[in-house]
């Protein structure tokens, strides 16, 4: 496998993002947002009602995660990816608001892939079930919105060398499809 490409978050250079190819390992550094089911539903309602959002998604990277509480001495508890497809119904509207990339696990819908191509966005994969070791790449965190949702609140994570892979690139190439085909018998 090739050496990981360093990606700075938020994404200040959308052109470089478009050049990442499906299957490329990356290391993410900078600040990212978190969100999962309940936060997406609330954002959707706000967008539908034409109300302002509590966070600005311009150039942001959104990590689908509901972190575990931190134990004394920890910055964050276990914080691995959740299944991205549950957020598919909400993803195109967030991409339209300037979201540049998402981090999760699992397949995405054709509608999300089309919206990603339209906006030049990328879907990164982190390995599900690695919550304990992935938390070591998160060096700071704070809640930005919806604190009443507990683990489902929108957090800001500061990450350093967070390991991921390009699952779907801005041209719509899907690493799952490409690599699984090699091992199907």
């Amino acid at each position: 496998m090739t050496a990981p490409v360093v990606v700075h978050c938020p994404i200040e250079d959308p052109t470089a993002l478009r050049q990442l190819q499906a299957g490329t390992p990356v290391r993410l550094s900078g600040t990212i947002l978190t969100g999962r089911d309940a936060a997406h539903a609330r954002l959707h309602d706000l967008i539908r009602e034409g109300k302002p959002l509590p966070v600005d998604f311009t150039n942001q990277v959104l990590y689908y995660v509901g972190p575990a509480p931190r134990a004394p001495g920890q910055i964050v508890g276990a914080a691995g990816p959740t299944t991205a497809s549950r957020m598919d119904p909400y993803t195109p509207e967030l991409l339209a608001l300037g979201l540049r990339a998402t981090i999760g696990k699992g397949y995405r819908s054709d509608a999300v892939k089309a919206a990603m191509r339209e906006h030049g966005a990328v879907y990164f994969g982190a390995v599900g079930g690695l919550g304990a070791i992935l938390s070591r790449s998160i060096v700071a965190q704070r809640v930005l919105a919806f604190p009443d949702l507990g683990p489902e609140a929108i957090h800001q994570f500061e990450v350093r060398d967070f390991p991921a892979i390009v699952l779907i690139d801005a041209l719509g190439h899907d690493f799952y499809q490409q690599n699984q085909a090699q091992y199907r018998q």
Partner: protein
Amino acid sequence: MRELLVEQITEAVAALCREANTVLPADVYAALTKASREEASPIGQLTLTQIVENADYARAEGVALCQDGGVTIVFLDVGQEVVLRGGALDDAVNEGVRRGYQQSFLRGSMLNRPINGHNTRDNTPAILHTRLVPGERVTVTVLPKGGGGDNGSQLRMFTPAQGLPAIHDFVLDTVKTAGPGACPPLIVGIGLGGSFDSVGILAKRALLRDVGTVHPDPDIAQLEHAWLEDINRLGIGPQGYGGRVTALAVHVETYARHIASIPVAVNLQCHSARKGVRIL
């Protein structure tokens, strides 16, 4: 007759919640280690190595293996000679879950109602399956069950004429459709027979068997073997990144059935296949 205070069940449940969520069972750990050596795909191999590293780290630091501590499924086998005193059994189990999750900084993943609910923050209530068995012991088993695997699980009623070929396709289709969302390599728990309501519990109980164990009925053992081979030809691999190890095991548990129906439940367990048992 033997008296047992339900507080002892509370303590056992609390300890099992902590242990299960931080220490990967030895059988699962061994199977993942073996798979990391045998996987043909380089990225699959790397992924399996990371999964083992995650288990080592969680154990050493006493932290959660995964942020999703799951729905806490509790199985109680209560000896008929036991009299439980000191409070309601349900309350005792839920208090154990509350203590276990809060004291060990495990995530609360339960909403108090299915619609318009709020997070209870302590992962209560548990899902409790109690049965009476001969004897004077109480066996407490805790299975923290992640959302990804359960979301990819399916239950269907088959007719005798559809038979095994259709059931085979259903099992494979379930694994294929779930894909990486269920966090492979999986343990595939299958309930075969019984009724609509009981077959799901059979499938869940199948997940409690140690990886590497074979069903005592040779017909069923043969099905487990054949279905595992076919699942591992799908190409999904660890995390869906492509590879040969899509499942570590297929466990089938069976029950008698009605002449008209073959209920089948396929319950997918992620690689973070947590479980723990205590005998009181």
